[in-house]
């Protein structure tokens, strides 16, 4: 199945080289997707634990702690590194 990837928020520029689609086996879970995504990150880069994670508009938690979401073909995986700003 194919997943649409949307990585944004703080330091979004570092995710520019990451493809906006992720191909995963049928029955894949959110954990599988995050592991596949981690493998695509350059060098020692890791997603911050506090990143919000959502699947097709459903809030699943954070990179560190999230629901065991089962994914479907065409889902959009949103990873948001928290932003503050003033």
């Amino acid at each position: 199945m194919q997943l649409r990837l949307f990585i944004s928020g703080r330091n979004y520029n570092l995710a520019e080289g990451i493809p906006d689609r992720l191909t995963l086996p049928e029955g894949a879970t959110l954990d599988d997707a995050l592991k596949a995504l981690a493998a695509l990150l350059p060098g020692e880069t890791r997603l911050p634990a506090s990143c919000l994670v959502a699947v097709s508009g459903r809030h699943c938690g954070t990179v560190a702690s999230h629901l065991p979401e089962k994914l479907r073909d065409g889902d959009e995986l949103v990873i948001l590194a928290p932003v503050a700003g003033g």
Partner: protein
Amino acid sequence: MARGALSAEERARYQRQIGPGVLTEEGQLRLRRSTVFISRVGGMGGPAALALAMAGVGRIIFAHGGTLESADLNRQVLGSEHGLGKPRAAQFADCLRERNHFVTVEALDHEPDDAEAVELAGRADLVISAAPTFAERFRLNRAAVACGVPLIDAAQWGMTGTLIATKPHVTACLRCVYPQDPPFEEMFPVVGAISAAIGSLAALEAIKILSGTGRPMFGSLLLIDGYRGHESRVQLRRNPTCPCCGDSPLPLDGREAGGEGGGTQDMN
């Protein structure tokens, strides 16, 4: 604060926002009776405060410390070159007062501490968090939850921004969304256009909530990535064990969560 019906001068001022698809006259009166507390009125809070003042919110209380610097002027619409080197709070308050004499403006010239945040949230009908640090955002969130008033969190980085609207004990609060403290960043990049966009949307949500108009986006997060021209909306999940708004909240001492886990993280 004026009571009763709108005056002829107020009707003339607000005529374009009273009618079908916008506010009712009663909604405009509700706005006039409302108080909004905004902490920081810089890049996002400034445009938010401006829009609220122009829309006729009766009382705006804001907090903003320091003196105006040149680097502020790529986004802080309440300041001007004339005010460089002068305290921000006084000139920002004057700027708002000059926009609408029907509005009362109160300025706090420093970051509110825990007690001040609760006191000011308690006087307000709605809180807007547009602060530069998560420490202050969580402080405002705790104050809003403690006082039972809605909080709108506006945030930005570079050309991207987020907006979260919360209703205490009904929707997710900011701590439900970010259970771990995100890392602190002293100097972050920002383009004023995204600040103004997010700040204006925060004001629009506030106007809707306070006047009883339209459908507020309570319980959701709007992500606008201006860099890539992509938006997303997330329906937020409330955490029943949240240390701020859950069934057994911690005291208002600012110690709700641990810091960001792990070591060096390039996307921090």
